[in-house]
């Protein structure tokens, strides 16, 4: 359970501006305890972030209805990401895609390696409520696309937080089923991990948190490194 003991990472607005100035391509704001605690993401900061950010950003955390998603989008977010609520009510994906268009609807998947393959977990933000849904990850990837997801963020739980690299085996299996952009999450520890992900061609984008928050990897250095490895990046 890699989500235990969240680090406090400072004021959200300051962090958003810092990453914008470092040429991050997109930001995702997760309120990972929202769903396990049965509440929606606190929205007061979203408009403040939207006022200063000139790059796309996505908001995730306990968005359980079209009305809640609409409030987040109206505050200035580009996309909403749903994870646990989509598992409780898969029809929410259809409703959001129909109302706002698939391009606004990201489905996050927390996937754990099992003896047979991979299975989807729910409420992973709270160690006491986190549970294995017994849904097969690959089947869920197919279903969320049919329902209208416009992007999938796959968080490989076994790799998450341990900084030993992305789970390329699992990502390749998911990529083969994916007709929408796939964002890899979980496991980035070094610039080489990002390069290996893109060289393998099994994700369209890489998401990382702790290595950036801690300063272990600076985004400008990472982008320069990727460019030197002949991977196309925005500089």
């Amino acid at each position, binding site marked *: 359970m890699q989500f235990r003991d969240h680090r406090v990472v400072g004021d959200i607005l300051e962090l958003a501006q810092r990453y914008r100035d470092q040429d991050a391509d997109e930001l995702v704001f997760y309120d990972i305890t929202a769903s396990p605690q049965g509440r929606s993401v606190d929205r007061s900061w979203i408009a403040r972030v939207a006022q200063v950010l000139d790059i796309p950003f996505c908001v995730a955390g306990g968005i359980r209805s079209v009305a809640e998603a609409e409030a987040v989008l109206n505050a200035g977010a*580009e996309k909403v990401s749903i994870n646990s609520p989509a598992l409780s009510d898969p029809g929410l994906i259809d409703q959001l895609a129909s109302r706002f268009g698939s391009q606004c609807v990201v489905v996050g998947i927390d996937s754990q390696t099992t003896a047979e393959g991979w299975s989807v977990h729910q409420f992973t933000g709270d160690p006491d409520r986190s549970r294995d849904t017994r849904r097969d990850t690959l089947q869920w990837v197919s279903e969320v696309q049919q329902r209208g997801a416009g*992007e999938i963020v796959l968080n490989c739980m076994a790799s998450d937080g341990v900084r030993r690299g992305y789970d390329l085996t699992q990502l390749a299996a998911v990529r083969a089923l994916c007709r929408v952009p796939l964002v890899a999450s979980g496991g980035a520890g070094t610039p080489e991990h990002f390069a290996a992900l893109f060289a393998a061609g099994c994700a369209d984008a890489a998401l990382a948190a702790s290595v950036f928050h801690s300063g272990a990897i600076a985004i400008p250095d990472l982008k320069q490194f990727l460019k030197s490895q002949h991977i196309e990046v925005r500089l």
Partner: protein
Amino acid sequence: MDVVIIDSGGANLASLVYALQRLGAKAVVSDEAAVIRSAPRVLLPGVGSAGNAMARLRAKGLHEVIPQLTQPLLGICLGMQLLFDHSDEGEGPSDGGAGTPCLGIIAGQVTRMAASPQLPVPHMGWNQLSVQHDDPLLAGIGREAWFYFVHSYCAAPGAYTLAETVYGAPFTSICSQRNFRGVQFHPERSAGPGARLLANFLTLV
């Protein structure tokens, strides 16, 4: 007032409003014909589907007002696609339907992008432009600049194309016809180059 943003329904006008605020511009959001007609410049944004947006414009009679405008107008993303004759979005041929008739300002069709494992759709991310014809909209913007795209439909390159971008096949990323211009990307979310493009638009008369 520097510009009127046409309220074509859908969420997400906030990011455009904030981008204009950062430039110090005075923007008004409106769906009233008189306000739009008297604007020095007009922005036609759009998030959502062509069918919903056109229904919203028709309900306010704006499908007749917009093509008559003579001041500079910039369509953004779906707003650019609405400038064309027709979009396949909304029960298009692939769904066995006829798609959505649009504003008919630019002669051409908007079609669905083809998805493949190497080219997922929506096309989402940062891309560069291949500029075919220079334009005041691009003043001071380097040829290497990156812009942020999110779309599933596009217009093939044509006589109206100022810049194109390749995603599998080339498509129109900036178009123009008389006082009407359109950008397929989101300048309000395209960092410095996007801000410069919007600032350039605000100088057009």
